[in-house]
């Protein structure tokens, strides 16, 4: 009881210490990355204690220490909510971040600004933890915006590259559109329920919760890259691989889903919101899986895989299983981060080559990375009794046996088979066959930082699902009986995907190049969504504003209607009716003479 709150606060405080010593000498040495990594590992250990207390006794806690301000009737204070979700997520996030920090000590070794990189990663982690442990919407929004800013800074890490700047700006813009939904929900809660605290919102249990839930759905669409606001996620692969591993696979992009999970007492009473989330998630998972099938950049394939899994989490919320979605968040973090780290290892070893058409034959050359990649892909596709199985298979089973939208279900199953297909594609092109990279070999995976970090996540990918699902308190009853074909459905479509992909990939070895079909072009250009949205909308906006403001108002109404028309009419008329020839002096002279003569004449007239 006594250790719970103190260890929670110690965890959060420990992480801020490397940031606060930025101006000291510690920041300028080359020891700073090691210092940050060690700090995170200590924070992981201290965070395990409250988690284990929660697992053992089921005790939750709210820490509300500092009253910040009171605005009319609402009271804002600094409060941390340590419940099921934040207790389980914080150790997972810290564990994954620990491994990624160690990995980036190898990956970013030659970067002159490596200390700043670690500071940014640590700042990101702190804001993510603020988001996760927030008890009121205001604090959550602080964390929300914080992860957005750090994402911007980290995606544009190599800011000399124009593509990286564009991608960072894209991330900010799409996240901003989602923030509109967040603010809408906050405003609704403020005006209708007079509360930003979760406890009060859930106690009041509003019946007409359509508007705030749609706002939160928009926020999740922006932050978690659901369909409609999704292009920023594949573009965010411009950042360094540790950034992709931390932000855009395990931690930041699940913030939107986490927000919806936090509001599960509201969503479980609102069938409309559930249907919307279900369909949105189904579209996302299918579309992004389809886009992943024909990409050639290894990081983009994994990014689309992340997007597809986020769609799956949204589907899970849509069938009213928030705890399963949360379990999938935790397990997904392990293998997705590991997949990104393996791709980083491959990229560095092949001298910054990211195109899978120029990799190959790494099966014998990089055995450790090969092992990790295959284990990660198997965990992703839901191989029985690996990590992904415990969450993904349960999700598919729950979806199969629930009274839900059949179309969404079909889309999810097809996307599951697509997962297997693109995972096979990565393995086939990157690892198998003969080498397709240049012959000057720089392959080296002997660094202990790299190997230890991937080893840790590999053990996590193998066992974390088992450990976590056997230790969490049961919140819902899983579906225990179902027909045989429904039970085997997930496994069947996955195996089908594997076989199909292997067969097709083998067939592509000795083909002559034929021009792409329309379906291929659709998938390769990401469904033409970025092409249309990024060009058409700004063009129409700018043209419309130019026509209405500049052409219509300025040039026509203010300039042309009265002033210039008047002068034009006057000149034309005067040209038309004039019959003068100049000769001013003559006219003046005749005038003078006339006046003089008439004056003389009429003076002497009686």
């Amino acid at each position, binding site marked *: 009881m006594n250790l719970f709150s103190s260890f929670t606060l110690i965890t959060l405080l420990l992480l801020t210490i490397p940031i606060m010593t930025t101006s000291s000498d510690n920041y300028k040495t080359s020891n700073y990355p090691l210092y940050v990594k060690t700090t995170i590992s200590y924070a992981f250990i201290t965070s395990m204690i409250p988690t284990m207390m929660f697992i053992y006794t089921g005790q939750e806690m709210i820490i509300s220490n500092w009253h910040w301000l009171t605005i009319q009737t609402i009271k804002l204070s600094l409060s941390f909510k340590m419940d099921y979700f934040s207790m389980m997520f914080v150790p997972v996030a810290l564990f994954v971040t620990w491994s990624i920090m160690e990995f980036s000590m190898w990956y970013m070794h030659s970067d002159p600004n490596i200390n700043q990189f670690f500071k940014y990663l640590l700042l990101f982690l702190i804001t993510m933890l603020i988001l996760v442990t927030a008890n009121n919407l205001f604090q959550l929004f602080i964390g929300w915006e914080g992860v957005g800013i750090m994402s911007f800074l980290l995606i544009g890490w190599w800011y000399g590259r124009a593509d990286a700047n564009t991608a960072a700006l894209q991330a900010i813009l799409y996240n901003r559109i989602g923030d509109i939904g967040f603010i809408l929900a906050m405003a609704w809660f403020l005006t209708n329920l007079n509360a930003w605290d979760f406890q009060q919102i859930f106690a009041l249990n509003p019946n007409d919760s359509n508007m705030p839930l749609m706002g939160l759905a928009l926020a999740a669409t922006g932050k978690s890259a659901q369909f409609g606001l999704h292009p920023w996620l594949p573009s965010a692969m411009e950042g360094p691989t540790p950034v992709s591993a931390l932000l855009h696979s395990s931690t930041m992009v699940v913030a939107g889903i986490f927000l919806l999970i936090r509001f599960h007492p509201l969503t479980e009473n609102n069938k409309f919101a559930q249907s919307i989330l279900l369909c949105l998630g189904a579209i996302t998972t299918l579309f992004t899986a389809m886009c992943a099938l024909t990409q050639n950049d290894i990081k983009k394939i994994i990014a689309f895989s992340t997007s597809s899994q986020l769609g799956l989490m949204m589907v899970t919320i849509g069938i009213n299983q928030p705890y399963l979605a949360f379990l999938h968040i935790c397990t997904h973090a392990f293998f997705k981060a590991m997949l990104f780290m393996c791709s980083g290892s491959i990229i560095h070893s092949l001298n910054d080559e990211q195109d899978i058409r120029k990799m190959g034959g790494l099966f014998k050359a990089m055995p450790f990375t090969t092992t990790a990649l295959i284990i990660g892909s198997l965990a992703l596709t839901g191989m029985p009794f690996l990590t992904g199985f415990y969450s993904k298979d349960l999700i598919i089973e729950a979806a199969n046996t629930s009274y839900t939208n059949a179309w969404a279900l079909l889309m999810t199953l097809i996307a599951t088979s697509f997962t297997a297909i693109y995972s096979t594609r990565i393995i086939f092109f990157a690892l198998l066959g003969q080498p397709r990279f240049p012959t000057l070999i720089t392959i080296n995976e002997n660094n202990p930082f790299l190997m230890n970090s991937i080893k840790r996540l590999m053990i996590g990918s193998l066992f974390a699902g088992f450990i976590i699902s056997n230790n969490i308190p049961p919140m819902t009853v899983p579906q225990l009986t179902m027909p045989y074909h429904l039970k085997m459905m997930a496994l069947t479509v996955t195996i089908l995907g594997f076989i199909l992909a292997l067969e097709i990939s083998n067939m592509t070895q000795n083909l002559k190049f034929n021009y792409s079909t329309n379906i291929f072009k659709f998938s390769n250009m990401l469904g033409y969504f970025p092409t249309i949205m990024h060009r058409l909308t700004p063009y129409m906006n700018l043209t419309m504003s130019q026509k209405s403001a500049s052409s219509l108002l300025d040039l026509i109404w203010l300039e042309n209607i009265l002033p210039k028309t008047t002068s034009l009419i006057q*000149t034309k008329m*005067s*040209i038309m009716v004039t019959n003068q*020839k100049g000769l001013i002096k003559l006219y003046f*002279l005749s*005038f*003078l003479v006339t006046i003089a003569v008439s004056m003389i004449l009429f003076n002497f007239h009686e």
Partner: protein
Amino acid sequence: MSLVYMNIMTAFMVALAGLLMYRSHLMSSLLCLEGIMLSLFVMASLTILNSHFTLASMMPIILLVFAACEAALGLSLLVKVSNTYGTDYVQNLNLLQC
């Protein structure tokens, strides 16, 4: 009539002659126009003040206002001509091109 009026009338006649007879510059005609206005103003003021006809003493002031307006108009025409030809020689004004 007293000598003053005679004097002012002479000034008026001279300025009128100058307005209607000028050699080359348009500007001299404008200056003479100002001279006409000035002499008219002085004559009107003298008459009104002498006969203590207070009611009409706003007439010279209004005359002055209108004189200023027409001087501005004349100057703007001069500037337009000068913009086209560079000088204000009257022999330039033989083409009625707009």
